[in-house]
């Protein structure tokens, strides 16, 4: 037989003490963007991409200055030289230093990429934002216009533009953005359509917020993630498109160079066996594409709330 245990008052203590801390949060506070950065840092490939982009930008700034040559100086006594201590990346068929031209070309290519992405971003956010926010008939008409514009053959439009405006940096950027903003506008519109029915947007309306306030405080900050990914992925697309156009002879006029025009110039000397003249700009185009694409993919994963740990 078990001895009977007596329950006495001193065996208990009031449970209320535990409730005092019921509302305390133990975890340190992490803002949304800090959390995204933490997840992005864990993605090694994306970080490699980021480092490569930073190095490319740095070299684009200082590269043309450290070789001692200029990008336009022709020296016919030393043309088609293989890479050496004198000319790190060799010289081209006009005797210009390739190392200087590569980094000068990086300035142009990166500038075109960033400018195109920025213009796409501004136009896309405004157009898509209005379309999504107004909804209904306005949305319908705006999206049909965008679709018609998107249906015009791209190369045809670019060549027409070149004929009308003449080749140049501005023409290239306009060519990139004339239809480039449409995917961005579609993305923003979709996001806005979804967000404007969120309860916190209704709550802000109920508090007396007007459309501008809701757009600035609620909708744009919440669409920033996917937009940023899209911008990151637009940069390499624009660089690649510029290279393609330049390769077809629709690019930046000499003596200025972009990676695409350098690859185009190299075709002539490819026949006499100077593969490096094509390989070097090709390598940098690929490297830039790779870096931006892995960073963009990494950001997409980092921004995805389902990946939150």
């Amino acid at each position: 037989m078990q001895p009977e245990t007596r329950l006495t008052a001193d065996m208990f203590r009031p449970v209320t003490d535990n409730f005092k801390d019921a509302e305390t949060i133990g975890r340190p506070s992490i803002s949304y963007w800090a959390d995204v950065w933490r997840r992005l840092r864990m993605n090694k490939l994306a970080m490699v991409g980021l480092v490569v982009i930073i190095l490319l930008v740095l070299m684009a700034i200082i590269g043309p200055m450290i070789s001692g040559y200029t990008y336009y100086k022709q020296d016919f006594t030393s043309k088609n030289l293989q890479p050496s201590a004198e000319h790190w990346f060799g010289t081209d068929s006009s005797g210009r230093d390739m190392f200087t031209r590569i980094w000068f070309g990086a300035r142009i290519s990166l500038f075109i990429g960033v400018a195109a992405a920025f213009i796409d971003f501004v136009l896309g956010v405004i157009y898509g934002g209005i379309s999504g926010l107004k909804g209904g008939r306005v949305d319908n008409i705006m999206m049909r216009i965008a679709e018609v514009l998107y249906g015009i053959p791209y190369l045809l439009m670019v060549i027409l533009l070149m004929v009308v405006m003449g080749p140049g940096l501005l023409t290239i950027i306009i060519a990139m953005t004339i239809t480039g903003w449409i995917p961005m506008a579609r993305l923003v519109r979709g996001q806005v359509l979804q967000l404007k029915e969120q309860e916190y947007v209704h709550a802000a309306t109920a508090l007396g917020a007007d459309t501008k306030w809701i757009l600035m405080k609620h909708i744009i900050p919440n669409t920033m993630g996917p937009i940023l990914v899209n911008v990151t992925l637009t940069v390499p697309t624009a660089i690649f498109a510029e290279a393609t156009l330049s390769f077809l002879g629709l690019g930046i006029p000499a003596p200025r160079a972009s990676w695409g025009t350098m690859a185009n110039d190299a075709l002539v000397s490819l026949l006499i066996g100077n593969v490096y003249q094509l390989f070097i700009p090709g390598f940098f185009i690929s490297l830039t594409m790779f870096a931006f694409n892995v960073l963009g993919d990494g950001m997409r994963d980092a921004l995805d709330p389902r990946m939150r740990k």
Partner: protein
Amino acid sequence: MKLTLREAPAKKDKKQDTLLQVRNLKKYFHTSGGTVKAVSDVTFDIKVGETLGIVGESGCGKSTMGRTILRLYDATEGEVLFEDKNVHKASTRELKKLRRDMQMIFQDPYASLNPRMTIGEIIGEAIDLHKLASGAKRKARIQELLTLVGLKPEHINRFPHEFSGGQRQRIGIARALAVEPKFIVCDEPISALDVSIQAQVINLLSDLQDKMELTYLFIAHDLSMVKHISDRVAVMYLGKIAELSESEELYANPLHPYTEALLSAIPIPDPEVERKRQRIVLKGDVPSPMNPPSGCHFRTRCPYAMESCTKIDPVWQEVKPDHFVACHLYNKDIMGADVRKIR
């Protein structure tokens, strides 16, 4: 934190001023498939300091009605008068002033707080929009509101995802209270919460009502919770109000066949009674609000449906003091001598 429901507050005096009048309010949504008649012709008053409960099946237009009253949606027809000011005709400036008086607490505590904003920014938004305070005063006010809803002042820099459902709902309440409203639409504020937390939020709401003399429109589908918190209850079916009366009266003497069926679904916490209880089980589903039945909306599922129900819209009549019903069974002109007796 208490987890039990307190005694229901003492019912208020009958002679009260009217705070809000809803007159023939209609809200239709035009979709590609046709017109959805979410709210079709509802009329009622809300008195100062009372809680009016709205019950009905999901999809019957409760939430749409709540949102249309606050002009989160523009009404298709009809008017809403708040202290005799027409909410749907107000200019932008007048509307902003009205928004201070009328607030809303939302159903989903996870969707009603912007995930990118801190709690301080969320509550501060209300203060900023109406320029109620700034600087240190603003911060003090936010902390005061947090304390009022049972959270801690240091939560000001936290983000919504760090809180539980019940805590988030209290943040939503603090945001609504920040502008010192007179009237709050509570759109199913507890249906997304754990049962133990429901009591917490309900107690908070009724505490705040006493403290700040608030008037509630309480939308829910939990009949016993509505009975507990409401002074009067309206029963909605397919965009229309079927019956409206004081809550004790409604639960004791349901007149509309739909109310009878709804109330018979409440389980009774007594096995003896529960076993003998007769449930009225309605046939079929709620018809589509795109194509509601002619005449009385309920006739397709009503056990007492008659010839005249298909042809004539039931009249909204006060069959006894403060007890309104829209049903032909209580209409002498239609039923003649067969009119249902009212207890």
